């Protein structure tokens, strides 16, 4: 590959008696998520130029999906985002249901919503932990990782798997709630709510985080829209937009989702945004559990392994913890998708904003900047 350097740090020029270095801030850096890299040109510790480098990130998801049956792809799509896999499943299934013109049972919608929100919680915990680790607060990260495990345990009871749940299928979901699941979920929610006090003390009220993140990576209200930011990043810049409210799917039309917006637009505001949305998500799951109806969990679409989707195309979007996940699915009436295009939420920040923000930034701040924008490279190049 042309622009991937074979070295970590090398001197490339001299300028006004200062040495210009090139540093590969790549997958082997603990602050980088996934197989992604930035080639940074630096004078001292200050960055002057940045070149995003996708390296071995490309796993060919979109192409691969064209070669597999509609239902086989359910095992593939969650892998696009490890931390928050469920939005992929739901978006893919919703797109198929849109082409099929079917409406899934209400209980299935609620079950999807609950898994989506649980996935959000676990992803927020990972995100907050990454942010804490990026500024050296490892205690907070360890506690959050441990708490995330409680949610993974719940997923195991609900779906049979911890990380890749493969729970939504075209027409509904695979299992109903296991016995005792709701009580367990309430217990974990109560625990997480209590833990918030500790997270606040360890992280969000910590002077280190305020000093490091204040003013870092400022995105104005207009820029956020212009660059195409979505999710918490967009709302932390003062734009009240949330797919769950503005274009509701699953059970969100029946739930009252509170959109949290903040003015500020810097890394600190975005960190606090995640913290506020975390709290709101806990309440949202409680409301969903209370209003969940009884009934079927799946439409009978016949034998799914021989599912044929009629000719047509549809776009389905889902609000994930990082922003909008979109699936554009085209069918030619066959057993396999004709084309699937995925819109990942990290692309605008990871590729475009990086080139605006990173120059003039200190090398120490890159990891914190990435964590604050919740950049998850695997969805940049599918």
């Amino acid at each position, binding site marked *: 590959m042309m622009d991937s350097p074979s070295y970590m740090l090398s001197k490339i020029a001299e300028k006004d008696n200062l040495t210009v270095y090139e540093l590969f801030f790549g997958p082997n850096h603990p602050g980088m998520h996934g197989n992604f890299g930035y080639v940074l040109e630096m004078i001292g510790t200050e960055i002057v130029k940045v070149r995003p480098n996708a390296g071995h990130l490309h796993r060919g998801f979109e192409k691969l999906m064209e070669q*597999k*049956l509609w*239902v*086989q*792809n*359910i*095992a*593939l799509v969650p892998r696009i985002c490890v931390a928050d896999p469920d939005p992929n499943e739901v978006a893919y299934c919703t797109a198929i249901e849109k082409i099929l013109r079917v409406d899934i049972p209400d209980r299935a919608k609620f079950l999807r919503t609950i898994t989506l929100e649980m996935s959000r919680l676990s992803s927020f915990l990972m995100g907050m932990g990454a942010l804490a680790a990026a500024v050296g607060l490892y205690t907070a990260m360890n506690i959050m990782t441990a708490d995330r495990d409680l949610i993974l345990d719940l997923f*195991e*009871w609900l*779906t*049979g*798997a911890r990380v*890749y749940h*493969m729970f939504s*299928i075209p027409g509904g979901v*695979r*299992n109903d709630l*296991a016995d005792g699941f709701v009580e367990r979920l309430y217990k974990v929610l109560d625990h997480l709510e209590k833990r918030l006090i*500790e997270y606040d*003390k360890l992280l969000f009220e910590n002077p280190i985080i305020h000093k490091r993140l204040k003013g870092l990576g400022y995105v104005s209200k207009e820029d956020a829209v212009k660059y195409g930011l979505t999710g918490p990043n967009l709302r932390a810049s003062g734009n009240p937009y949330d797919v769950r409210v503005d274009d509701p799917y699953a059970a969100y039309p029946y739930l009252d989702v509170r959109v949290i917006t903040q003015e500020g637009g810097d890394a600190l505001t975005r960190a606090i945004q995640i913290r506020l949305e975390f709290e709101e998500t806990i309440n949202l799951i409680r409301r969903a559990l209370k209003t969940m109806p009884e009934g079927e969990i*799946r439409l009978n679409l016949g*034998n*799914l*392994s021989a599912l044929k989707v009629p000719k047509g195309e549809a776009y389905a979007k889902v609000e994930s913890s990082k922003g909008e996940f979109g699936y554009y699915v085209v069918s030619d009436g066959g057993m396999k998708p004709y084309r699937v295009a995925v819109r990942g939420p990290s692309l605008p920040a990871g590729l475009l904003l990086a080139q605006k923000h990173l120059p003039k930034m200190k090398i120490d701040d890159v990891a914190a900047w990435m964590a604050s924008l919740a950049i998850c490279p695997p969805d940049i190049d599918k």
Partner: protein
Amino acid sequence: MSLGDKSVYSPLTNLKNLFKKPITVKYPKEILKVFPKDGVSPIYRGLHTNDLNKCIGCGMCQRICPFDAIEMKVIGENEQGRAIKKPVVDYGRCSFCGFCVDVCPTNSLKMSRHYIYKVKTVKSMSAKEEVEHIKQKFKLMPDESLGDDIGYNTGKAKKILG
């Protein structure tokens, strides 16, 4: 955990760890003591188990598998001289999605709550032989059974694909 004021003796509390059992174990000897299976979900999607008396060798599981992890292996012949085939699951490829279980028309294929797979290597083997050995061992052969601890199966989670 409380974050309130700590006593001056608090550093001494670590001493009690001296008398506690260690958290680390000698793997794989002590593994079951530390990770009791009770904690595993009743519908856990772990290693497969197949009831050979029920399996009709139809190959549906092989066809649905998104990752080509199932191979139909000939294990004998029936009276009419036709080959009897049974599925072999390659865990180097399997993603534990459970679609093969969903699709099985006889409900013979199930997933167990076992998730630890260990392979004993022989010291005298060369590196190349060892790779082959592990490749072969990392499969669930038709004559192996983990049927004592069933996890995900179409009885517990209603049939969806068939």
